[in-house]
Protein backbone atom coordinates (compact mmCIF):
# COMPACT_ATOMS: atom_id res chain seq x y z
CA UNK A 1 0.00 0.00 0.00
CA UNK A 2 1.41 3.44 -0.90
CA UNK A 3 2.73 5.51 1.98
CA UNK A 4 0.06 8.15 1.48
CA UNK A 5 -2.65 5.52 1.56
CA UNK A 6 -0.97 4.10 4.63
CA UNK A 7 -1.19 7.48 6.34
CA UNK A 8 -4.80 7.87 5.26
CA UNK A 9 -5.53 4.53 6.86
CA UNK A 10 -3.90 5.59 10.15
CA UNK A 11 -5.72 8.90 10.22
CA UNK A 12 -9.01 7.17 9.57
CA UNK A 13 -8.22 4.66 12.31
CA UNK A 14 -7.76 7.50 14.80
CA UNK A 15 -10.96 9.19 13.62
CA UNK A 16 -12.97 6.02 14.04
CA UNK A 17 -11.31 5.20 17.35
CA UNK A 18 -12.19 8.59 18.79
CA UNK A 19 -15.76 8.45 17.51
CA UNK A 20 -16.14 5.30 19.55
CA UNK A 21 -14.55 6.92 22.59
CA UNK A 22 -17.08 9.71 22.26
CA UNK A 23 -19.87 7.16 22.04
CA UNK A 24 -18.63 5.09 24.99
CA UNK A 25 -18.24 8.21 27.09
CA UNK A 26 -21.64 9.66 26.30
CA UNK A 27 -23.15 6.27 27.10
CA UNK A 28 -21.41 6.52 30.48
CA UNK A 29 -19.36 3.39 29.80
CA UNK A 30 -16.04 5.20 30.12
CA UNK A 31 -14.88 6.59 33.49
CA UNK A 32 -12.97 9.85 33.95
CA UNK A 33 -12.55 12.37 31.17
CA UNK A 34 -12.09 11.95 27.42
CA UNK A 35 -10.12 14.51 25.40
CA UNK A 36 -10.72 13.72 21.73
CA UNK A 37 -8.04 14.07 19.08
CA UNK A 38 -10.52 14.38 16.20
CA UNK A 39 -9.41 17.10 13.80
CA UNK A 40 -5.71 16.81 14.62
CA UNK A 41 -5.07 13.38 13.05
CA UNK A 42 -2.65 14.64 10.43
CA UNK A 43 -0.17 15.84 13.05
CA UNK A 44 0.28 12.57 14.91
CA UNK A 45 0.27 10.50 11.72
CA UNK A 46 2.54 12.78 9.71
CA UNK A 47 5.10 12.92 12.49
CA UNK A 48 5.05 9.24 13.45
CA UNK A 49 5.28 8.20 9.81
CA UNK A 50 8.70 9.83 9.79
CA UNK A 51 9.84 7.80 12.81
CA UNK A 52 11.40 4.39 13.33
CA UNK A 53 9.57 1.82 15.38
CA UNK A 54 12.11 2.19 18.17
CA UNK A 55 11.99 6.00 18.23
CA UNK A 56 10.37 7.54 21.28
CA UNK A 57 7.34 9.73 21.72
CA UNK A 58 5.75 11.42 24.71
CA UNK A 59 2.08 12.28 24.56
CA UNK A 60 -0.53 14.41 26.30
CA UNK A 61 -3.99 14.37 27.87
CA UNK A 62 -5.21 14.49 24.26
CA UNK A 63 -3.05 11.55 23.37
CA UNK A 64 -5.04 8.74 21.77
CA UNK A 65 -3.97 9.85 18.31
CA UNK A 66 -0.29 9.86 19.18
CA UNK A 67 -0.44 6.38 20.67
CA UNK A 68 -2.28 4.92 17.70
CA UNK A 69 -0.05 6.66 15.18
CA UNK A 70 2.99 5.17 16.91
CA UNK A 71 1.47 1.72 16.57
CA UNK A 72 -0.72 1.02 19.58
CA UNK A 73 -3.33 -1.75 19.37
CA UNK A 74 -6.88 -0.31 19.54
CA UNK A 75 -8.31 -3.14 21.65
CA UNK A 76 -5.68 -2.68 24.37
CA UNK A 77 -6.27 1.07 24.30
CA UNK A 78 -10.03 0.75 24.63
CA UNK A 79 -9.49 -1.69 27.46
CA UNK A 80 -7.29 0.86 29.22
CA UNK A 81 -9.77 3.67 28.64
CA UNK A 82 -12.42 1.55 30.33
CA UNK A 83 -10.12 0.70 33.23
CA UNK A 84 -9.86 -2.96 32.39
CA UNK A 85 -7.11 -5.41 33.40
CA UNK A 86 -6.33 -6.10 29.73
CA UNK A 87 -5.50 -2.45 29.07
CA UNK A 88 -2.04 -1.17 28.25
CA UNK A 89 -1.54 -0.11 31.87
CA UNK A 90 -3.66 -2.83 33.50
CA UNK A 91 -6.30 -0.15 34.05
CA UNK A 92 -4.04 1.88 36.30
CA UNK A 93 -3.40 4.72 33.87
CA UNK A 94 -6.54 5.34 31.85
CA UNK A 95 -7.08 7.69 28.94
CA UNK A 96 -4.41 10.22 29.96
CA UNK A 97 -1.61 7.77 30.69
CA UNK A 98 -1.36 5.24 27.86
CA UNK A 99 2.24 3.99 27.77
CA UNK A 100 3.83 1.21 25.73
CA UNK A 101 7.53 0.37 25.55
CA UNK A 102 6.92 -1.91 22.56
CA UNK A 103 6.04 1.09 20.38
CA UNK A 104 8.43 3.57 22.02
CA UNK A 105 5.57 5.33 23.75
CA UNK A 106 7.03 6.80 26.94
CA UNK A 107 3.57 7.69 28.06
CA UNK A 108 0.82 10.23 27.83
CA UNK A 109 0.95 12.88 30.52
CA UNK A 110 -1.84 14.67 32.36
CA UNK A 111 0.47 17.46 33.48
CA UNK A 112 0.53 20.06 30.71
CA UNK A 113 4.12 20.22 29.46
CA UNK A 114 5.01 17.53 31.97
CA UNK A 115 6.66 15.27 29.46
CA UNK A 116 9.03 17.82 27.95
CA UNK A 117 11.78 16.71 30.29
CA UNK A 118 11.08 13.02 29.69
CA UNK A 119 11.30 13.34 25.90
CA UNK A 120 14.48 15.36 26.19
CA UNK A 121 15.92 12.75 28.53
CA UNK A 122 15.10 9.96 26.10
CA UNK A 123 17.04 11.92 23.47
CA UNK A 124 19.87 12.24 25.96
CA UNK A 125 19.98 8.44 26.31
CA UNK A 126 19.86 7.96 22.55
CA UNK A 127 22.84 10.24 22.11
CA UNK A 128 24.78 8.83 25.06
CA UNK A 129 24.14 5.21 24.10
CA UNK A 130 24.59 5.98 20.39
CA UNK A 131 21.40 4.15 19.43
CA UNK A 132 20.44 6.56 16.67
CA UNK A 133 16.99 6.90 18.16
CA UNK A 134 14.99 10.13 18.03
CA UNK A 135 12.50 11.38 20.62
CA UNK A 136 9.37 13.36 19.78
CA UNK A 137 7.62 15.50 22.36
CA UNK A 138 4.01 16.20 21.41
CA UNK A 139 2.34 19.06 23.27
CA UNK A 140 -0.44 21.56 22.84
CA UNK A 141 0.26 25.29 22.52
CA UNK A 142 -0.94 25.63 26.11
CA UNK A 143 2.29 23.98 27.23
CA UNK A 144 4.12 27.08 25.98
CA UNK A 145 3.07 28.52 29.34
CA UNK A 146 5.20 26.03 31.26
CA UNK A 147 8.72 27.16 32.07
CA UNK A 148 9.96 23.59 32.02
CA UNK A 149 9.71 23.61 28.21
CA UNK A 150 12.25 26.44 27.92
CA UNK A 151 14.61 24.83 30.40
CA UNK A 152 14.75 21.60 28.44
CA UNK A 153 14.84 23.26 25.02
CA UNK A 154 17.93 25.07 26.29
CA UNK A 155 19.47 21.75 27.38
CA UNK A 156 18.59 20.05 24.10
CA UNK A 157 20.09 22.90 22.10
CA UNK A 158 23.27 23.05 24.19
CA UNK A 159 23.83 19.32 24.01
CA UNK A 160 22.54 18.82 20.46
CA UNK A 161 20.05 16.18 21.54
CA UNK A 162 17.96 14.28 18.96
CA UNK A 163 14.58 15.55 20.12
CA UNK A 164 11.75 17.13 18.15
CA UNK A 165 9.31 19.42 19.94
CA UNK A 166 5.97 19.20 18.15
CA UNK A 167 3.61 21.98 19.20
CA UNK A 168 0.05 21.21 18.16
CA UNK A 169 -1.45 24.66 18.04
CA UNK A 170 -5.20 24.07 18.04
CA UNK A 171 -5.63 27.63 19.29
CA UNK A 172 -7.24 26.84 22.63
CA UNK A 173 -5.96 26.19 26.13
CA UNK A 174 -9.10 24.56 27.45
CA UNK A 175 -11.61 27.41 27.09
CA UNK A 176 -9.24 30.28 26.42
CA UNK A 177 -7.88 31.38 23.04
CA UNK A 178 -4.11 31.07 22.90
CA UNK A 179 -3.71 34.70 21.88
CA UNK A 180 -4.85 35.61 25.41
CA UNK A 181 -2.18 33.41 26.93
CA UNK A 182 0.73 33.66 24.52
CA UNK A 183 2.73 36.84 23.99
CA UNK A 184 4.91 37.39 20.97
CA UNK A 185 5.45 34.93 18.16
CA UNK A 186 5.32 31.21 18.97
CA UNK A 187 8.04 30.37 16.47
CA UNK A 188 10.45 32.70 18.28
CA UNK A 189 10.05 30.63 21.45
CA UNK A 190 12.23 27.99 19.82
CA UNK A 191 14.69 30.10 17.87
CA UNK A 192 15.43 32.07 21.04
CA UNK A 193 17.11 28.92 22.29
CA UNK A 194 18.96 28.28 19.05
CA UNK A 195 16.47 25.67 17.88
CA UNK A 196 15.35 25.82 14.25
CA UNK A 197 11.57 25.81 13.80
CA UNK A 198 9.02 25.30 11.09
CA UNK A 199 5.45 26.55 11.28
CA UNK A 200 3.06 24.67 9.05
CA UNK A 201 -0.48 23.66 8.19
CA UNK A 202 -1.12 20.71 10.48
CA UNK A 203 -4.16 19.64 8.50
CA UNK A 204 -2.12 18.48 5.53
CA UNK A 205 -0.40 15.24 6.51
CA UNK A 206 1.96 15.54 3.53
CA UNK A 207 3.36 18.81 4.85
CA UNK A 208 3.63 17.44 8.38
CA UNK A 209 5.40 14.31 7.17
CA UNK A 210 7.84 16.36 5.08
CA UNK A 211 8.69 18.73 7.92
CA UNK A 212 8.98 15.88 10.41
CA UNK A 213 11.26 13.99 8.03
CA UNK A 214 13.58 17.01 7.83
CA UNK A 215 13.63 17.29 11.60
CA UNK A 216 14.29 13.56 12.03
CA UNK A 217 17.15 13.67 9.54
CA UNK A 218 18.65 16.58 11.42
CA UNK A 219 18.30 14.75 14.73
CA UNK A 220 19.78 11.47 13.50
CA UNK A 221 22.74 13.21 11.95
CA UNK A 222 23.61 14.69 15.33
CA UNK A 223 22.70 18.28 14.49
CA UNK A 224 20.31 18.58 17.41
CA UNK A 225 16.71 19.47 18.22
CA UNK A 226 13.97 20.96 16.05
CA UNK A 227 10.66 22.62 16.79
CA UNK A 228 7.53 22.18 14.68
CA UNK A 229 4.45 24.32 15.13
CA UNK A 230 1.52 22.56 13.51
CA UNK A 231 -1.60 24.70 13.10
CA UNK A 232 -4.56 22.49 13.75
CA UNK A 233 -7.97 22.35 15.38
CA UNK A 234 -9.89 20.12 17.75
CA UNK A 235 -13.38 19.49 16.45
CA UNK A 236 -14.98 18.54 19.73
CA UNK A 237 -14.96 20.16 23.16
CA UNK A 238 -11.89 20.31 25.37
CA UNK A 239 -13.31 17.07 26.70
CA UNK A 240 -16.50 15.18 25.94
CA UNK A 241 -19.03 17.14 27.94
CA UNK A 242 -17.74 20.54 26.85
CA UNK A 243 -20.84 21.03 24.73
CA UNK A 244 -21.85 24.72 24.82
CA UNK A 245 -18.72 26.25 23.34
CA UNK A 246 -19.99 29.48 21.80
CA UNK A 247 -18.79 31.50 24.77
CA UNK A 248 -15.21 30.78 23.81
CA UNK A 249 -15.30 29.94 20.08
CA UNK A 250 -17.84 30.62 17.33
CA UNK A 251 -19.67 27.82 15.53
CA UNK A 252 -18.59 29.44 12.25
CA UNK A 253 -14.95 28.91 13.18
CA UNK A 254 -15.60 25.25 13.92
CA UNK A 255 -17.43 24.87 10.62
CA UNK A 256 -14.62 26.46 8.62
CA UNK A 257 -12.13 23.92 9.95
CA UNK A 258 -14.38 20.90 9.64
CA UNK A 259 -14.99 21.50 5.94
CA UNK A 260 -12.29 22.01 3.32
CA UNK A 261 -9.51 21.78 5.85
CA UNK A 262 -10.48 18.45 7.35
CA UNK A 263 -7.27 16.41 7.33
CA UNK A 264 -8.93 13.28 5.95
CA UNK A 265 -10.65 15.31 3.27
CA UNK A 266 -7.45 17.14 2.32
CA UNK A 267 -5.65 13.85 1.81
CA UNK A 268 -8.49 11.91 0.19
CA UNK A 269 -9.00 14.71 -2.32
CA UNK A 270 -5.34 14.48 -3.26
CA UNK A 271 -5.36 10.69 -3.39
CA UNK A 272 -8.33 10.68 -5.73
CA UNK A 273 -6.95 13.49 -7.88
CA UNK A 274 -3.59 11.76 -8.21
CA UNK A 275 -5.32 8.49 -8.88
CA UNK A 276 -3.53 6.80 -6.00
CA UNK A 277 -6.88 5.46 -4.88
CA UNK A 278 -10.50 5.52 -5.93
CA UNK A 279 -13.61 5.95 -3.79
CA UNK A 280 -14.03 2.21 -3.53
CA UNK A 281 -10.53 1.75 -2.15
CA UNK A 282 -11.06 4.46 0.47
CA UNK A 283 -14.45 3.09 1.37
CA UNK A 284 -12.85 -0.32 1.71
CA UNK A 285 -10.33 1.02 4.20
CA UNK A 286 -13.07 2.62 6.25
CA UNK A 287 -15.13 -0.54 6.24
CA UNK A 288 -12.17 -2.66 7.29
CA UNK A 289 -11.25 -0.28 10.11
CA UNK A 290 -14.83 -0.04 11.27
CA UNK A 291 -14.97 -3.77 11.76
CA UNK A 292 -11.63 -3.72 13.57
CA UNK A 293 -12.65 -0.86 15.87
CA UNK A 294 -16.01 -2.36 16.68
CA UNK A 295 -14.33 -5.63 17.57
CA UNK A 296 -11.83 -3.73 19.72
CA UNK A 297 -14.64 -2.03 21.62
CA UNK A 298 -16.38 -5.38 22.11
CA UNK A 299 -13.18 -6.85 23.47
CA UNK A 300 -12.76 -3.99 25.90
CA UNK A 301 -16.34 -4.04 27.09
CA UNK A 302 -16.22 -7.78 27.60
CA UNK A 303 -12.93 -7.88 29.46
CA UNK A 304 -12.84 -7.81 33.27
CA UNK A 305 -11.82 -5.07 35.68
CA UNK A 306 -8.60 -5.66 37.60
CA UNK A 307 -8.98 -7.50 40.87
CA UNK A 308 -8.95 -4.98 43.76
CA UNK A 309 -5.89 -6.73 45.20
CA UNK A 310 -3.90 -5.46 42.20
CA UNK A 311 -3.98 -1.99 43.68
CA UNK A 312 -0.80 -2.83 45.61
CA UNK A 313 1.15 -4.07 42.60
CA UNK A 314 3.47 -1.98 40.39
CA UNK A 315 4.15 0.71 42.99
CA UNK A 316 7.82 -0.27 42.96
CA UNK A 317 9.86 -2.03 40.28
Amino acid sequence: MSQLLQMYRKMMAIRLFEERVNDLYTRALMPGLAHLYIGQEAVAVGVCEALRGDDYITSTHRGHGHCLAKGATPSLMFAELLGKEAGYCKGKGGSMHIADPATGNLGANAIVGGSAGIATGAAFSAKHLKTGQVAVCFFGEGALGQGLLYEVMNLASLWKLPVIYVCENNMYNEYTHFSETTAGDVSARATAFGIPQETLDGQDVRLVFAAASRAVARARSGEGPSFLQCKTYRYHGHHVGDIAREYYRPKTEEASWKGERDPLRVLSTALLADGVADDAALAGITAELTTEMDAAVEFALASPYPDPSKVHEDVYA
Partner: protein
Amino acid sequence: MPETLAATREMSFGEAIREALAEEMRRDPTIVLLGEDVAEAGTTFKVLKGMVEEFGTTRVIDTPISEPGFTGLGVGAAMTGMRPVVDIMFGDFLTLIMDQVVNQAAKIHYMSGGKWKVPMVVRCTLGATRRSAAQHSQSLHAWPSHVPGLKVVIPSTPADAKGLMKTAIRDDNPVIFFEDKISYTKVKGPVPEGDYTIPFGVADIKRTGTDITFIGTSSMVQVALGAAKMLEEIGVNAEVVDPRTTWPLDEKTLVESVKKTSRCIVIDEGSFRYGVTGELASVVQEGAFYDLDGPVRRLGATHVPIPFSPSLEDTTVPSERDVFELARQMCRK
Protein backbone atom coordinates in the same frame (compact mmCIF):
# COMPACT_ATOMS: atom_id res chain seq x y z
CA MET B 1 -19.90 29.41 63.17
CA PRO B 2 -21.41 32.08 65.50
CA GLU B 3 -24.74 31.06 67.05
CA THR B 4 -26.05 34.59 66.66
CA LEU B 5 -26.55 34.21 62.92
CA ALA B 6 -30.12 33.43 62.02
CA ALA B 7 -31.01 33.30 58.32
CA THR B 8 -29.41 30.40 56.45
CA ARG B 9 -29.96 28.87 53.03
CA GLU B 10 -29.21 25.36 51.81
CA MET B 11 -26.15 25.59 49.58
CA SER B 12 -23.53 23.36 48.04
CA PHE B 13 -19.91 23.49 49.12
CA GLY B 14 -18.93 25.13 45.83
CA GLU B 15 -21.69 27.73 46.02
CA ALA B 16 -20.64 28.69 49.54
CA ILE B 17 -17.08 29.28 48.37
CA ARG B 18 -18.28 31.42 45.50
CA GLU B 19 -20.48 33.44 47.85
CA ALA B 20 -17.57 34.06 50.20
CA LEU B 21 -15.37 35.23 47.33
CA ALA B 22 -18.09 37.44 45.86
CA GLU B 23 -18.93 39.09 49.20
CA GLU B 24 -15.26 39.73 49.91
CA MET B 25 -14.63 41.15 46.46
CA ARG B 26 -17.54 43.56 46.89
CA ARG B 27 -16.05 44.66 50.20
CA ASP B 28 -12.40 44.97 49.11
CA PRO B 29 -11.38 46.17 45.64
CA THR B 30 -7.80 44.92 46.10
CA ILE B 31 -8.95 41.30 45.85
CA VAL B 32 -8.36 39.73 42.43
CA LEU B 33 -8.83 36.15 41.23
CA LEU B 34 -6.05 34.67 39.10
CA GLY B 35 -6.02 31.30 37.42
CA GLU B 36 -6.57 29.25 34.29
CA ASP B 37 -10.08 29.62 32.90
CA VAL B 38 -11.37 31.38 36.00
CA ALA B 39 -13.21 34.05 33.97
CA GLU B 40 -15.75 33.12 31.29
CA ALA B 41 -15.43 29.40 32.01
CA GLY B 42 -15.73 29.96 35.77
CA THR B 43 -13.04 27.29 36.33
CA THR B 44 -13.05 23.62 35.37
CA PHE B 45 -15.22 22.97 38.39
CA LYS B 46 -17.52 25.91 37.56
CA VAL B 47 -17.05 27.21 41.10
CA LEU B 48 -16.48 30.76 39.87
CA LYS B 49 -19.42 30.86 37.44
CA GLY B 50 -20.79 34.38 37.25
CA MET B 51 -17.85 36.07 38.94
CA VAL B 52 -16.40 37.64 35.82
CA GLU B 53 -19.83 38.98 34.89
CA GLU B 54 -20.00 40.84 38.19
CA PHE B 55 -16.37 41.84 38.67
CA GLY B 56 -15.03 42.05 35.14
CA THR B 57 -11.84 40.76 33.58
CA THR B 58 -9.61 43.17 35.50
CA ARG B 59 -10.45 41.33 38.73
CA VAL B 60 -11.23 37.82 37.48
CA ILE B 61 -8.21 37.09 35.35
CA ASP B 62 -7.58 34.17 33.00
CA THR B 63 -3.91 33.20 33.03
CA PRO B 64 -1.67 31.15 30.79
CA ILE B 65 -0.93 27.62 31.99
CA SER B 66 1.88 28.95 34.18
CA GLU B 67 1.22 27.95 37.77
CA PRO B 68 4.68 28.93 39.05
CA GLY B 69 4.50 32.20 37.14
CA PHE B 70 1.12 33.46 38.22
CA THR B 71 1.62 32.23 41.77
CA GLY B 72 4.89 34.16 41.91
CA LEU B 73 3.11 37.15 40.45
CA GLY B 74 0.54 36.73 43.19
CA VAL B 75 3.25 36.83 45.85
CA GLY B 76 4.60 40.13 44.53
CA ALA B 77 1.12 41.58 44.14
CA ALA B 78 0.26 40.58 47.70
CA MET B 79 3.37 42.35 48.99
CA THR B 80 2.42 45.56 47.24
CA GLY B 81 -1.18 46.26 48.08
CA MET B 82 -3.32 43.58 46.49
CA ARG B 83 -5.03 40.55 47.98
CA PRO B 84 -4.72 37.96 45.23
CA VAL B 85 -6.63 34.71 45.34
CA VAL B 86 -4.68 32.34 43.16
CA ASP B 87 -6.53 29.32 41.79
CA ILE B 88 -4.32 26.44 40.70
CA MET B 89 -7.19 24.08 39.98
CA PHE B 90 -5.90 20.64 40.97
CA GLY B 91 -3.99 20.26 44.24
CA ASP B 92 -1.66 17.99 42.28
CA PHE B 93 -0.23 21.13 40.70
CA LEU B 94 1.13 22.27 44.05
CA THR B 95 4.18 20.35 42.86
CA LEU B 96 4.76 23.22 40.42
CA ILE B 97 4.41 26.13 42.83
CA MET B 98 6.22 24.86 45.89
CA ASP B 99 9.14 27.21 45.42
CA GLN B 100 6.97 30.30 45.16
CA VAL B 101 4.83 29.17 48.08
CA VAL B 102 7.47 27.68 50.36
CA ASN B 103 10.72 29.52 49.64
CA GLN B 104 9.06 32.83 48.84
CA ALA B 105 5.56 33.44 50.25
CA ALA B 106 6.05 31.51 53.48
CA LYS B 107 9.42 33.05 54.36
CA ILE B 108 9.27 36.67 53.21
CA HIS B 109 7.68 38.01 56.37
CA TYR B 110 10.22 36.27 58.59
CA MET B 111 13.28 36.88 56.41
CA SER B 112 12.44 40.58 56.24
CA GLY B 113 12.23 40.80 60.00
CA GLY B 114 8.48 41.36 59.77
CA LYS B 115 8.66 44.17 57.23
CA TRP B 116 6.89 42.66 54.23
CA LYS B 117 3.59 40.79 54.33
CA VAL B 118 2.10 38.33 51.84
CA PRO B 119 -1.71 38.36 52.15
CA MET B 120 -2.37 35.78 49.47
CA VAL B 121 -4.73 32.83 49.23
CA VAL B 122 -3.90 29.82 47.08
CA ARG B 123 -6.99 27.79 46.27
CA CYS B 124 -6.66 24.19 45.17
CA THR B 125 -8.52 20.92 45.30
CA LEU B 126 -7.94 17.56 46.93
CA GLY B 127 -9.61 14.19 46.77
CA ALA B 128 -9.86 11.07 44.64
CA THR B 129 -12.59 8.75 43.30
CA ARG B 130 -13.26 10.89 40.25
CA ARG B 131 -11.41 8.48 37.90
CA SER B 132 -8.82 11.18 37.25
CA ALA B 133 -5.82 8.90 37.82
CA ALA B 134 -2.58 9.50 39.68
CA GLN B 135 -1.78 13.07 38.56
CA HIS B 136 -5.20 14.57 39.29
CA SER B 137 -6.32 12.86 42.48
CA GLN B 138 -3.82 13.67 45.21
CA SER B 139 -4.50 15.24 48.59
CA LEU B 140 -1.25 17.04 49.33
CA HIS B 141 -2.24 19.24 52.26
CA ALA B 142 0.42 17.59 54.45
CA TRP B 143 3.18 19.38 52.54
CA PRO B 144 2.22 23.00 53.24
CA SER B 145 1.21 22.01 56.77
CA HIS B 146 4.89 21.15 57.32
CA VAL B 147 5.98 24.66 56.35
CA PRO B 148 6.30 27.42 58.98
CA GLY B 149 4.86 30.66 57.63
CA LEU B 150 1.90 29.08 55.88
CA LYS B 151 -1.63 28.55 57.13
CA VAL B 152 -3.60 25.61 55.79
CA VAL B 153 -7.39 25.35 55.60
CA ILE B 154 -9.30 22.12 54.91
CA PRO B 155 -13.03 22.85 55.28
CA SER B 156 -15.62 20.08 55.24
CA THR B 157 -18.98 21.89 55.11
CA PRO B 158 -20.45 24.75 53.07
CA ALA B 159 -20.88 26.98 56.12
CA ASP B 160 -17.31 26.35 57.27
CA ALA B 161 -15.99 26.92 53.77
CA LYS B 162 -17.64 30.33 53.53
CA GLY B 163 -16.51 31.55 56.94
CA LEU B 164 -13.00 30.16 56.59
CA MET B 165 -12.56 31.59 53.08
CA LYS B 166 -13.39 35.05 54.40
CA THR B 167 -10.86 34.62 57.19
CA ALA B 168 -8.29 33.40 54.67
CA ILE B 169 -8.75 36.44 52.44
CA ARG B 170 -8.52 38.85 55.37
CA ASP B 171 -5.48 37.11 56.82
CA ASP B 172 -2.18 38.92 56.23
CA ASN B 173 -0.32 35.66 55.65
CA PRO B 174 -0.20 33.19 52.79
CA VAL B 175 -3.03 30.69 53.18
CA ILE B 176 -3.40 27.44 51.26
CA PHE B 177 -7.09 26.59 50.94
CA PHE B 178 -7.95 22.99 50.05
CA GLU B 179 -11.34 22.21 48.53
CA ASP B 180 -12.61 18.65 48.12
CA LYS B 181 -13.70 18.15 44.50
CA ILE B 182 -16.49 15.74 45.33
CA SER B 183 -17.90 18.08 47.96
CA TYR B 184 -18.33 20.95 45.48
CA THR B 185 -21.69 19.61 44.41
CA LYS B 186 -22.31 16.57 46.64
CA VAL B 187 -22.03 18.24 50.04
CA LYS B 188 -24.88 20.62 50.81
CA GLY B 189 -25.82 22.37 54.01
CA PRO B 190 -27.21 25.49 55.64
CA VAL B 191 -25.08 28.57 55.03
CA PRO B 192 -25.66 31.83 56.94
CA GLU B 193 -26.49 34.84 54.84
CA GLY B 194 -24.17 37.79 54.79
CA ASP B 195 -20.92 38.38 56.52
CA TYR B 196 -19.33 36.11 59.11
CA THR B 197 -15.88 34.68 59.62
CA ILE B 198 -14.62 31.54 61.29
CA PRO B 199 -11.30 31.86 63.12
CA PHE B 200 -8.38 29.64 62.14
CA GLY B 201 -7.15 27.17 64.74
CA VAL B 202 -10.59 26.38 66.14
CA ALA B 203 -11.74 22.82 65.65
CA ASP B 204 -15.44 22.09 65.33
CA ILE B 205 -17.16 19.16 66.95
CA LYS B 206 -19.44 17.93 64.17
CA ARG B 207 -21.02 15.31 66.37
CA THR B 208 -20.73 14.80 70.11
CA GLY B 209 -20.14 11.33 71.45
CA THR B 210 -18.72 9.48 74.40
CA ASP B 211 -17.13 6.23 73.27
CA ILE B 212 -14.61 7.12 70.57
CA THR B 213 -13.30 10.21 68.83
CA PHE B 214 -13.01 10.43 65.05
CA ILE B 215 -10.71 13.22 63.96
CA GLY B 216 -11.67 13.75 60.33
CA THR B 217 -10.42 16.25 57.78
CA SER B 218 -12.09 17.66 54.67
CA SER B 219 -13.75 14.84 52.71
CA MET B 220 -13.27 12.43 55.59
CA VAL B 221 -15.58 14.34 57.94
CA GLN B 222 -18.62 13.06 56.02
CA VAL B 223 -17.17 9.56 56.11
CA ALA B 224 -16.67 9.82 59.86
CA LEU B 225 -20.24 11.06 60.35
CA GLY B 226 -21.54 8.21 58.24
CA ALA B 227 -19.60 5.68 60.28
CA ALA B 228 -20.84 7.29 63.50
CA LYS B 229 -24.40 6.76 62.33
CA MET B 230 -23.68 3.09 61.57
CA LEU B 231 -22.10 2.67 64.99
CA GLU B 232 -25.22 3.92 66.76
CA GLU B 233 -26.91 0.65 65.83
CA ILE B 234 -24.32 -1.34 67.78
CA GLY B 235 -24.47 1.02 70.70
CA VAL B 236 -21.29 2.95 70.05
CA ASN B 237 -21.54 6.71 70.42
CA ALA B 238 -18.81 8.36 68.36
CA GLU B 239 -17.64 11.97 68.53
CA VAL B 240 -16.52 13.59 65.29
CA VAL B 241 -14.01 16.43 65.51
CA ASP B 242 -13.03 18.52 62.48
CA PRO B 243 -9.80 20.54 62.96
CA ARG B 244 -10.84 22.73 59.98
CA THR B 245 -7.28 24.08 59.73
CA THR B 246 -4.22 21.86 59.97
CA TRP B 247 -2.22 24.97 60.77
CA PRO B 248 -2.82 26.70 63.10
CA LEU B 249 -3.96 23.55 64.89
CA ASP B 250 -6.47 23.42 67.74
CA GLU B 251 -4.67 20.79 69.78
CA LYS B 252 -6.73 21.47 72.87
CA THR B 253 -10.09 20.48 71.39
CA LEU B 254 -8.63 17.34 69.85
CA VAL B 255 -6.96 16.26 73.08
CA GLU B 256 -9.94 17.13 75.29
CA SER B 257 -12.23 15.04 73.12
CA VAL B 258 -9.97 12.00 73.32
CA LYS B 259 -9.48 12.44 77.07
CA LYS B 260 -13.23 12.16 77.28
CA THR B 261 -13.73 9.20 74.92
CA SER B 262 -10.39 7.41 75.57
CA ARG B 263 -10.26 6.18 71.97
CA CYS B 264 -9.28 7.88 68.72
CA ILE B 265 -9.11 7.28 64.98
CA VAL B 266 -7.59 9.95 62.73
CA ILE B 267 -9.01 9.89 59.20
CA ASP B 268 -7.54 11.83 56.31
CA GLU B 269 -7.60 11.38 52.53
CA GLY B 270 -3.91 12.07 51.99
CA SER B 271 -1.45 9.25 51.36
CA PHE B 272 -1.14 7.27 54.55
CA ARG B 273 2.57 7.68 55.28
CA TYR B 274 4.25 10.85 56.59
CA GLY B 275 1.02 12.75 56.19
CA VAL B 276 -1.49 14.60 58.31
CA THR B 277 -2.55 11.53 60.31
CA GLY B 278 0.95 11.13 61.73
CA GLU B 279 0.98 14.62 63.21
CA LEU B 280 -2.56 14.51 64.55
CA ALA B 281 -2.14 11.04 66.07
CA SER B 282 1.10 12.17 67.71
CA VAL B 283 -0.50 15.29 69.14
CA VAL B 284 -3.31 13.19 70.58
CA GLN B 285 -1.10 10.52 72.14
CA GLU B 286 1.21 13.18 73.57
CA GLY B 287 -1.71 15.05 75.14
CA ALA B 288 -4.09 12.28 76.11
CA PHE B 289 -1.79 9.29 76.60
CA TYR B 290 -2.82 8.49 80.16
CA ASP B 291 -6.51 8.54 79.24
CA LEU B 292 -6.12 6.30 76.20
CA ASP B 293 -7.66 2.86 76.19
CA GLY B 294 -5.35 1.80 73.36
CA PRO B 295 -3.16 3.26 70.64
CA VAL B 296 -4.46 6.10 68.49
CA ARG B 297 -5.26 4.58 65.13
CA ARG B 298 -5.04 6.13 61.68
CA LEU B 299 -6.81 5.72 58.36
CA GLY B 300 -5.51 7.35 55.18
CA ALA B 301 -5.42 6.69 51.47
CA THR B 302 -3.76 3.41 50.52
CA HIS B 303 -0.08 4.25 50.10
CA VAL B 304 -0.04 3.88 46.29
CA PRO B 305 -0.39 6.33 43.39
CA ILE B 306 -4.13 6.71 42.78
CA PRO B 307 -5.14 4.20 40.08
CA PHE B 308 -7.59 4.99 37.29
CA SER B 309 -9.76 1.90 37.26
CA PRO B 310 -12.88 2.18 39.42
CA SER B 311 -12.34 -1.31 40.78
CA LEU B 312 -8.96 -0.19 42.13
CA GLU B 313 -9.53 3.47 42.95
CA ASP B 314 -12.52 2.81 45.16
CA THR B 315 -10.37 0.72 47.47
CA THR B 316 -7.87 3.51 48.12
CA VAL B 317 -9.98 6.00 50.06
CA PRO B 318 -11.12 5.25 53.63
CA SER B 319 -14.81 4.34 53.64
CA GLU B 320 -17.56 4.52 56.27
CA ARG B 321 -17.26 0.75 56.46
CA ASP B 322 -13.51 0.91 57.15
CA VAL B 323 -14.04 3.41 59.96
CA PHE B 324 -16.96 1.43 61.33
CA GLU B 325 -15.02 -1.84 61.42
CA LEU B 326 -11.97 -0.33 63.08
CA ALA B 327 -14.09 1.52 65.63
CA ARG B 328 -16.06 -1.63 66.42
CA GLN B 329 -12.82 -3.50 67.13
CA MET B 330 -11.47 -0.69 69.29
CA CYS B 331 -14.71 -0.53 71.28
CA ARG B 332 -14.73 -4.36 71.50
CA LYS B 333 -18.22 -4.67 70.05
